[in-house]
Each structure stands twice: as structure tokens, then as C-alpha cells.
């Protein structure tokens, strides 16, 4: 089988992942598409390793590491999404606009105090 | 004796550093300032005394340590015929500024911070004239920026902040381009030592590279000596700076730019200089005419003097552009003369602004010779010296520059430089015109009686109505009593409204600061040999020819 096939599949998979990251509004689905991109890389690596008949199997070793890294990232990503949900009651990526140029200097966002005091409380009220 | 130059730098630096100790009382600060600057001046005089005048062309009293081998930057100081007068001028002007400061503290208060800033400024200025290593020159060239920014920004006039920002940004752009030029020289020759590079007369650098390097260095220096198109920072900086700031800005900072031409641009890049000299000459001459015309139509006294500096430095640059020993001598002499005379002009203008509360010629009315006879006559003396009356220092700089332009260096086109000479001649007439017109508007005519605190004119619009818009209406014709006129914003620069009736004429403090300048202007006017004998041999060395009829 010529090397081009897996590389093209991997590239397509990568593009799908990119689309997923850009298009989806829900943070968790964005994480899933990131996973997709990382697996595309794994496919690529394994294909090259076999094609090169590399005695050190560098490609497969790197694939293992990538898998581990992906796992770690997803774990951490979910934790962050959880924190966002707890603070903002929504994980819609588009709604997270509090930190921005206009936001910061425009109406100079109010200082952050613990829950129950000042601004944060009423922001929580909003869906 | 080489520790002398080090001491010359160390004394003001130590003075500034020890000023941060909190033990100083307000009154003692200005005396302390005078003491430190006096010490520096004494050291400068000692250097002048120790200097071997027979061999003014050679670099003397050199100290040479390695400071940063990585950049092969050496802490290399030295003084020769070209830099000695400038060092003494800087030390003198700084001392006079401190003396003036003692009697007349500026509006912004915080005298201790001002003395600290001025001492750091003095270190930067003297360092620039002593440095013999390209990068060291660049470092001292930039040390001056921040202190002068704060002098203008904190103790300046009404819209000082904008002027200070424009000053520092414009000058920084200039010095950044200067750095590029210096680095091109460094990459080509491999050494940063000015003495070595001058001796090589540009060997080892290809002609095209010399042109690029001269262009970069030239632009950097041209921003500092305001050459025509790059001068717009000067009028704002001068108008807003306090008296002390203006004197040092005009007296010394402009000289650092022209000194750069004499020390770096022309000796190290001769072919580049020869290629770009016509352009330098053309821009210089345009500067002369442009500066003079701009002065003719100015209303603000300090702004007019600033534009006159553009005109005078035009002559200095014309002197450089001729690439002849007499041209270079003219430029260096013009440097010193301009420093002294414009320093005096700004001192007097500052005194006038302090007394009248304004520097606007129309609101000054006229008749200063009647109300302030001594200040009026000093202003007249300074203007006459500045328009280049023979017998006073201003004349030799301009005359020798025109003499140089009469027969420029071999490679340059003679008819072009004859045109420059003719236009320069017309420039001298225009210079005489605007100074005399200013004198007749300010010192002559009948004085306007300033009525004690009358109805304060609320906004500047009403002032316009009272004085008549646009064209400066002859004050006598309106005969209006100028009430306690203050523009809309309270001028924090402590521009006290003119007190009723008698204005105090020149005070002892002011006289002590101004008389040395008057004396030196007369001395160099009557006896130009004092300076020419000093710069002559050094200039011959630069042009690498023994005699050379120029």
C-alpha cells in the first residue's frame, strides 16, 4: 500500500478535527474534535514508522507518548470546563467574552470578589 | 593626568547620586547644585589648562578600559581641539543654569528632583563630548533623553506633556537610526575606536556602504542639530521647557548633533560625506531661509528664538557640507558661538516671561527699554550678537561658513556651493530682519500700563476679541489696558500675572548667570584666534592633509 493513502486519511481526519474545533459551540464537543486531531497525528506517525521500516520505531514510541499526552490534556480540559460551568453556568465558548480589549478598557470590568458579594452574584443569575 | 576626564564625569554623577539621600533641606539643594556644577567647571578649566595647545590635533588625556568585551565596547575617553571647547562650554552653561536656578526656581516646585535631573543631564552631555568609542558615544548620546524629557514634562509650560513626548520620540527615532549607522561602520571595519577609524580615513569600507552609513548617521545627527525637515520637535520643546531647560537644550544638546558630524560622520566616512555633501548643503541652506522666515512671522518670543536656532545651525551644517578645513572650523566656531548667544537669549527670554507672565510678543506690548532698561539692553545685545555683528562671536561662524562655501572641497560642484553661499548671504539679511523686527515690537514703542487685577478675561476667546484676531494689532492703537489676562487653564508653570506698576529689573542672580556669556561673546568676537587656533590643527588632521588651502 503506498504511503500516500494513510497520509491523506490523516490529513482529512486532521481537517475534520479543525472544523470541529472552530464550528462547535459546546466546549466538550470542541475537546472531542481536538482528540480527533491528535489521533490523526498518531495515524500519520504509525504509517510513517511502518513505511520507513525504522529499526528504532521512533514513530510508534512517539505515538504512545501522544496518546498519553492526549489523555492528560482531556482530563485537564474537562476539569477546566467543569470550573467554567461552576462559575458561569454555561460552557458555550461564544459566551465567554468577559476578557477582551473592549471589555477590559471599555467599562473597566468590576473587581472580582468571592461569590455572594458584588457583581459576580448577579452575573451568576444570568443564564 | 588621564584621571581628570574620569573625574569630570564622576563628580556630577556622584553629586546626583548623593542627592537621593533624604537629608537635604530645600534651600540647601540649589546651593548644593551650584557647588557640584562649580566643581565640574573647575575640573573642566583644569583640563583646559593641562591641555597641550601646541599639539591640539592629537587626542590627549586618554583613558581606555574595556567595559563590555562582548560588544567590544571600551570606556575610551579623550579630548582634543574639537571637543575641549565644547566640554568647557557645557560645564560653564550648566554652572550658569544652576546659578540662575538659585535665584529663580521654576514653577513646578520639587527643586531637588530638578537638580538631580540637571546633574544627570550634565553627565550625559560631557560624556558625549569625551567619548571616543562609537557605542560609548551612543550611550551618552541617549543618556540625555530621559532627563530632558522629565525637565520639559514636569517643569514645563502649559502643554508641556505633548511637547516632551514629541521631543523624546523624535530624538529616539533619530538615535535609533544613528545606532544602525554606527553598527554598519562597526561591521565593516571591525573596530569601534574613533581615533583608529579617523586615522583610516574610511579605508576598508566600500563607497556604497559609506553612503548608506553616512545617510543613517547623518539622519540621526540631523534630528539633533535640527536640520530642516527634521526640526519640528524643537520649537515645541523650547516653548514649553523651563528657562534652564531651554538654555541647556539650545546651548548644548544641539551641539551634540553637530559635534557628531565633526567627530563621526565626516572623518570616518569621507567618501560617503563627499557623495551626500551637496544634499547636506542644500538642506542646511533651506534650513537657514526657512528658519529665518518662520521667525519673521512668530508671535511667541521663545518659539522665535527656537526657530532662530534652526537658522544658525543651518550655517553650521553648511560649514560641514563644504568639507573644507575652513568650513569645519566655521562649523565648530559657530557651535560655540551659538551655544553662548542662544543661551543668553533664552536666559533673557525666560526672565521676560517670568516678569510679564507671557512670552507672546503682542501681549508684551512694547516699551521694554523704558520699563526694564537693563533687560531690554541685554536683549538688544543678544539679538545683535545673534544676527552676526562683526566684533561679536556670531559673525565668525557665519562668515567663515560662507568663505568655505565660496570654494568647497575638490569633489564638490562649485556653482552649486556658490548658490548656497548667495542664499546663505540672503539668510543673514533675513536673520537681521527678524531680530530687529522683534526688537522694535518688544523693546521699542510706548509701554502699556498693566492695570492691577481687573476683570479676569475668562476664556482665551475674549482675549482674542480684546487684542484683535490673527494679525498682531499694534498695541498702541488699541490702547487697551491688559487686565490680569490668564488663558483658560491655570498655567501651573507659575507664570505669575504681571505685578502692578514697577517690574523688577535684572536681579543680581540673573546678572551673575548672564555676564559671563556676554563677556565670552565679546572675547571670541574680538579675538577669534582663541578658538580657531584650537580647532585648526584638529581639523587639518581630520582632512588628513598638512596645510591644504581648502
Amino acid at each position: 500500500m503506498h504511503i500516500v493513502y494513510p497520509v491523506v486519511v490523516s490529513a482529512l481526519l486532521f481537517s475534520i478535527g479543525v472544523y470541529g474545533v472552530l464550528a462547535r459551540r459546546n466546549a466538550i464537543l470542541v475537546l472531542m474534535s481536538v482528540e480527533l486531531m491528535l489521533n490523526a497525528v498518531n495515524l500519520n506517525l504509525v504509517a510513517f514508522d511502518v513505511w520507513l521500516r525504522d529499526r528504532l520505531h521512533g514513530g510508534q514510541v512517539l505515538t504512545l507518548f501522544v496518546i498519553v499526552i492526549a489523555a492528560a490534556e482531556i482530563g485537564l480540559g474537562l476539569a477546566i470546563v467543569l470550573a467554567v460551568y461552576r462559575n458561569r453556568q454555561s460552557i458555550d465558548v461564544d459566551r465567554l467574552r468577559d476578557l477582551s480589549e473592549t471589555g477590559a478598557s471599555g467599562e473597566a470590568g468590576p473587581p472580582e470578589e468571592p461569590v455572594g458579594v458584588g457583581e459576580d452574584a448577579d452575573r451568576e443569575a444570568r443564564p | 593626568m588621564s584621571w581628570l576626564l574620569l573625574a569630570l564625569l564622576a563628580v556630577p554623577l556622584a553629586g546626583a547620586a548623593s542627592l537621593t539621600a533624604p537629608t537635604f533641606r530645600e534651600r540647601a539643594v540649589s546651593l548644593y547644585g551650584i557647588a557640584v556644577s562649580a566643581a565640574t567647571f573647575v575640573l573642566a578649566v583644569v583640563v583646559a589648562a593641562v591641555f597641550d595647545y601646541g599639539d591640539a590635533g592629537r587626542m590627549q588625556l586618554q583613558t581606555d578600559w574595556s567595559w563590555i568585551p562582548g560588544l567590544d565596547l571600551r570606556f575610551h575617553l579623550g579630548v582634543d581641539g574639537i571637543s575641549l571647547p565644547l566640554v568647557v562650554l557645557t560645564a560653564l552653561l550648566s554652572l550658569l543654569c544652576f546659578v540662575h536656578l538659585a535665584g529663580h526656581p521654576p514653577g513646578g516646585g520639587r527643586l531637588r528632583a530638578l537638580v538631580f535631573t540637571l546633574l544627570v543631564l550634565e553627565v550625559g552631555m560631557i560624556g558625549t563630548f569625551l567619548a571616543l568609542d562609537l557605542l560609548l558615544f551612543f550611550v551618552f548620546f541617549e543618556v540625555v533623553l530621559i532627563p530632558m524629557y522629565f525637565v520639559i514634562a514636569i517643569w514645563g509650560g502649559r502643554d508641556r506633556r505633548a511637547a516632551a513626548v514629541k521631543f523624546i520620540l523624535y530624538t529616539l527615532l533619530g538615535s535609533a537610526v544613528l545606532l544602525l549607522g554606527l553598527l554598519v561602520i562597526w561591521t565593516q571595519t571591525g573596530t569601534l575606536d574613533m581615533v583608529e577609524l579617523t586615522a583610516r580615513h574610511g579605508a576598508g569600507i566600500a563607497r556604497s556602504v559609506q553612503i548608506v552609513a553616512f545617510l543613517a548617521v547623518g539622519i540621526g545627527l540631523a534630528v539633533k542639530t535640527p536640520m530642516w525637515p527634521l526640526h519640528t520637535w524643537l520649537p515645541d520643546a523650547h516653548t514649553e521647557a523651563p528657562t534652564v531647560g531651554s538654555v541647556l537644550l539650545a546651548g548644548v544638546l544641539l551641539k551634540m548633533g553637530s559635534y557628531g558630524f565633526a567627530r563621526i560622520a565626516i572623518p570616518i566616512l569621507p567618501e560617503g560625506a563627499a557623495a551626500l555633501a551637496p544634499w547636506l548643503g542644500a538642506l542646511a541652506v533651506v534650513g537657514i531661509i526657512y528658519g529665518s522666515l518662520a521667525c519673521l512671522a512668530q508671535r511667541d518670543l521663545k518659539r522665535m528664538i527656537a526657530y532662530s536656532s534652526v537658522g544658525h545651525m543651518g550655517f553650521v551644517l553648511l560649514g560641514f557640507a563644504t568639507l573644507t578645513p575652513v568650513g569645519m572650523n566655521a562649523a565648530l566656531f559657530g557651535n560655540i558661538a551659538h551655544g553662548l548667544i542662544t543661551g543668553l537669549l533664552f536666559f533673557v527670554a525666560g526672565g521676560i516671561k517670568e516678569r510679564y507672565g507671557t512670552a507672546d510678543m503682542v501681549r508684551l506690548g512694547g516699551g521694554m527699554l523704558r520699563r526694564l532698561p537693563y533687560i531690554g539692553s541685554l536683549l538688544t545685545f543678544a539679538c545683535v550678537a545673534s544676527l552676526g555683528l562683526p566684533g561679536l562671536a556670531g559673525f565668525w561662524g557665519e562668515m567663515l561658513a560662507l568663505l568655505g562655501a565660496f570654494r568647497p572641497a575638490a569633489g564638490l560642484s562649485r556653482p552649486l556651493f556658490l548658490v548656497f553661499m548667495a542664499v546663505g548671504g540672503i539668510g543673514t539679511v533675513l536673520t537681521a530682519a527678524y531680530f530687529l523686527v522683534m526688537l522694535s515690537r518688544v523693546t521699542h514703542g510706548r509701554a502699556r500700563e498693566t492695570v492691577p487685577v481687573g476683570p479676569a478675561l475668562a476664556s482665551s476667546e475674549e482675549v482674542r476679541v480684546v487684542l484683535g484676531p490673527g494679525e498682531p494689532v499694534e498695541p498702541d492703537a488699541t490702547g487697551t489696558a491688559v487686565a490680569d489676562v490668564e488663558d483658560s487653564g491655570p498655567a501651573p508653570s507659575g507664570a505669575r500675572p504681571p505685578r502692578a506698576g514697577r517690574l523688577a529689573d535684572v536681579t543680581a542672580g540673573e546678572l551673575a548667570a548672564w555676564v559671563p556669556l556676554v563677556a565670552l561673546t565679546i572675547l571670541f568676537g574680538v579675538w577669534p584666534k582663541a578658538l580657531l587656533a584650537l580647532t585648526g590643527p584638529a581639523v587639518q588632521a581630520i582632512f588628513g592633509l598638512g596645510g591644504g588651502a581648502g
Partner: protein
Amino acid sequence: MISVVVLIVLLPFAAAVAGLLGSRWPRGGSRTKENDRAAARRAAWFAIAPITAALLLTLWLASWSARALPRGSASYPGAEFWAGLLPGSTEGTLTMVETGSVPISFTLRADGLSILIGVLVVVVALAVQVYSVGYMRDDPRHPSYSAFISLFTSAMLLVVYAGDLIVLYAGWEIMGLCSYLLIGHWWEDRANSRAAVKAFLVTRLGDVGFLFGIFTLGFAAGSFRIDDVLSADIPRGTLITATMLLLAGVAGKSAQVPLQTWLPDAMAGPTPISALIHAATMVAAGIFIVARLYPAFLGAQPTLDVLAVVAAIGMLGAALAALAQDDLKRVLAYSTISQLAYMAAGLAAGSDKAAIFHLLTHGAFKALLFLGAGAVIHHVGSNLMTHMGGLRTSVPITFAAMTVGFAALMGLPPASGFFSKDAVIAAIEHSHSPAQPFLYGAALLTVGVTGAYAMRAWLRTFFGPARVEALPEPPPGTAHVFDGREAPRSMLWPIGVLAVPALLLGFAGVTEVDWGSALVSLIVALLGAGVVYAFWRGAPHQDPARMLGPFRTACERAFYVDEAYRAVFARPVLRLARGVVRTDGQVVDGAVRGAGRLTMSLSGFVRLAQKGNAQLYVTGLLAGLLLITVAAVVLG
């Protein structure tokens, strides 16, 4: 011997410094009445004592020079007349200034020509200083006034005794400055101040040309010393350009045609100043320079032709203008321009001897006329001749002196003017330059017109019905009014002293008089005077100038040359200046501020991308990456 010359030049300078600094010294600035008076008295002593010493030294120098043996053949061909009269000459160099190209030597040089002019300068200066004591009695700024006169005298002597062209130029410019300071003496009235500025600027314009002429000569001869310049063989082309440029300076200083507009306005200054500076000495400096460098001018014939044409136009125009003036001082001012043109004509005709002789006599009788006019103005309180009339009885001594002056001006036989003007006319007659007929015709015509305006001024001032109405007290700072009696003794003595040379100096040249041309010019002068007398006889009240008919206003406004200059030069320069300030504000400064605004707007634009949306960031990231990859591959 050279130390005497140095002393002569330095004494008035010392007087000036002492006068400026010393006169008010102990009491400082408090300007009370008695302080002013005491300061004035001390200033007068500071001024008069040194100038008298300088006069004695000059006379002693002249006597030494007359007795000295001629030192070999004079250094340059044209010098034999002076060598004959005052053979002794001395020269000394203080120091050589190495400029890098042509060296400048601080040299003073006294020879026949310079000593003669030196005597004239010192005599007139002393007369004016003494005269001013009375004329400016209760003027608050008498110290500075007398100090500036001393400074002027020192500058003029520096020009006269200068041995190096640059030193000469220095004296030349300082003279210009002193004339500015003294014209603007009563600066309370802005008109005087403007006249002073105009005088300085016009002369300064001429001096620029003068400086360039000096450069040309200096470079050609390799040194600025006058001896080297005259003895060096300079190619004809360079000589012509150099002398043409020098002519610019001469025209500026001696108020010749292109640059003569400043002299009539210079009458705004006090009358003694007009006498000293604008009649006898400064304006004569231009002629002196041409005489000093005469061998160079002889070598450049085209320059002399230009000088001839300029002189011809100048003398006739000025004479006609003098005929139509109502202000007595302006009549004398235009007369000075005309007489200077005479001297220039003499030089153009090839005889510097006649020109200098006329310069000396003119210096004497014109100073006399001005001082007399000062006394008359004091008596009447106004400059205008319409306010004068029938004064021969009320101011008899002034009348006698001014009659001598006018006689000399018209060139009537006993007075000195007759001999000197005749010498010039004879020189013009025998010269063989291409412009000779034109010059000779103009000269004769001018003799007639001179006779006319001299007679008119004389008649309208001293004859005709006396006007008695009292004049209002002039505001402080204008001409000074006396209580009707004749001028005080301190003013009459100088007038008397000057009347002697005005009358007798002519006889020094009586040996070479060309009686034929003298007779012709005498007849023409008397003809002119007769015509004016006839018109005046008809209607003593009216102004004889009406005979000019339609040209009267043109003549009075000096053919509108002044207005033309203002329209062509002054106003456009001011408009250009305002234009420059505007462009500086908008274009040059605009570019700088524009760059700042551009960066700010760029910053605004780039900030748009920072909306806070994470996915927008990732999109930007990927787009940028794609762009870079494509560029790298394509261009790579």
C-alpha cells in the same frame, strides 16, 4: 608710529565703553531728573575728551606724514597724488588668524588718503559731540546717545585705517549698527524704530555683496591684506566680478541708486546724527573704499561704466526729488545722495583725486548745513519749511553760516564747493569712457537743479513772510523746542568752526581749476537759481516747487521707488513668512503628528480582533498559519 594709529582708533572706542557703563554707575538705574542731568554731563565729558585727544593725534600724524620722506615708489600706481601730498605711510599687524584657507591679519595701515579722511571724520565728530550737548540737553538717554556716536567714530576710523579687508568689513558693519541705534534713538515713536530697521536692512543687503566681493579678492590674491590684494595680478574676469560685488556694498552704504531709499527715512534720527553719519562720514565710506582700492577698479573698466550710469541716474533723480521736498532735512538728505553721486561720477571718470577733494568739502559744508538746519528746527520746532520763513533776522548767525553752506552746495566761487565740484566736472569732461557724454550731460543738468533746490530752500527758510503762530508742544521724543531765542552758544560754536573749511577748503585745489568748465557750471547754477528766484518773487507765500508742475508729487515721493521696493520685497517676504509658518505647522509638523495618529488608528484597527472569543483566536491562528505555509512553500 603704528601705535598712534591704534590709539586714534581705540580712544573713541574707550569713550563709548566708558559712556555706556560709567555714566550712571554710582546711582544705578533710578531715572530721576537730576540723575539724568548729572549722567548727561558726565557722558558729555566721556565723549568729548577722548575725541579731542584723537583729533590732536590725527593732526600730529598728518604733520608727521607730510614731513616724512616718500618711502620709495608708492606701492600701487594710483597712489602718487597722495604720496605727493602726504607721503609718509605706516602699517602694523597685530596678529595673523589662521582660518584654514585664506588667513586674516589684524592690520592697521595709515597713508595719505586715510589720514585725510581721518582728519575729516574726527573734526566732524568733535563738532557733532559738542553740538549735541546743547541739542540734547534734557534728553533722558543722552549717555547712550553720545556713547553710540563715539562707537560710530571708532568704527569709521577702523574702516579708514584698516589694512585688511575683513577688519575693514568689521568696521563697516559696526558703522551700520551704530546708524541703526542712533536713527532709532527716539524709539518711543514706532516710525523712528521702523526707519532704523529699514536703514540697517538695506545697508546689510549691500554688505552681503560687499563680503562676497572681499571673498573673491581674498581668494584671488591669497590674502585679505589690502597691499597684497592691490599688488597681486588678478585675472581681469575675477577683478570685474569682485569690483561689481564691492559696488553693491558701496551702493548700500553711500545710498546710491539701487539702495538709496533708506537715507531720506534716516532723517528720523536726531539732526546731529544726520550731520555726522548721514552727511559727512558713513555715507562717504563707500566712496572712500573705491578710492582705497582704486587700482583694482581701474583694472575693471566695465565696473566704472556701471558706476558712471548709476551715478548719473542717482544725481539727477535725487536733485529733482530735493527740489520738491517740504521737509528741510529731507531736502538735505536728497542733496547728499546727489552729491555722493557726483563723487561716484568723479571716480567713474577716472580721477579719485577730484572725488576725494569733493568728499572733503562736501563733508564740511553738508555737516554745516545740517547743524544749521538743526538750529533752525530748534528755533521753529518743526522740520517743515511751510512753518519757516523770514528767519534771517531772528537767527542771524545761523543764517550767515547756512548761506555759506548753500553757496558751497551751489558751487558759487568763494565757497569750497565751487572748486571741488569744478574738479569733478573737469574730470568728467576729460574722461574718455563710453558713458562720458551721458554722464557729462547729467552732471551739468544736476548743477542747474542743485542751484534751484539750494536757492529754494534758502529762500523759503530765511526770506518771505515770517510765520508767528505758536506750535503745540510736541509729544516727548520728537524734535526739541527752544524758547524762540537763537540756539545756545554750545551749538553755534561748532557751526562757526565748520563754516571756515566750508568757505576756505576750496582754495587748497585752486591751482588745478579748469576755468572753462568752472565758468560753464557757474552759469548753469546761477540760471537754475534765477528761475527759482523768479517763481518765488511772483508769490512769496507759495512753494517755488510748483514749477515742476505735474512731476511735483512724483519728485516728492522720489519717483515711488520706496513704495515699489515695499511692494516687491517687503510685503511678499512677510506673506512668505506667514506661509512658511503655516506650512511648518501643517505639512512638516503635520507629517510628524500624522504618523502618530496613523499608528493610533492602526492600533485601533488591530484591536478589533481582540473581541475575547476564543474560537476567533483559533481561527486567526489557523488562517495566519495557512498564509505562512503557502508563502513559505511558494516563495521558498
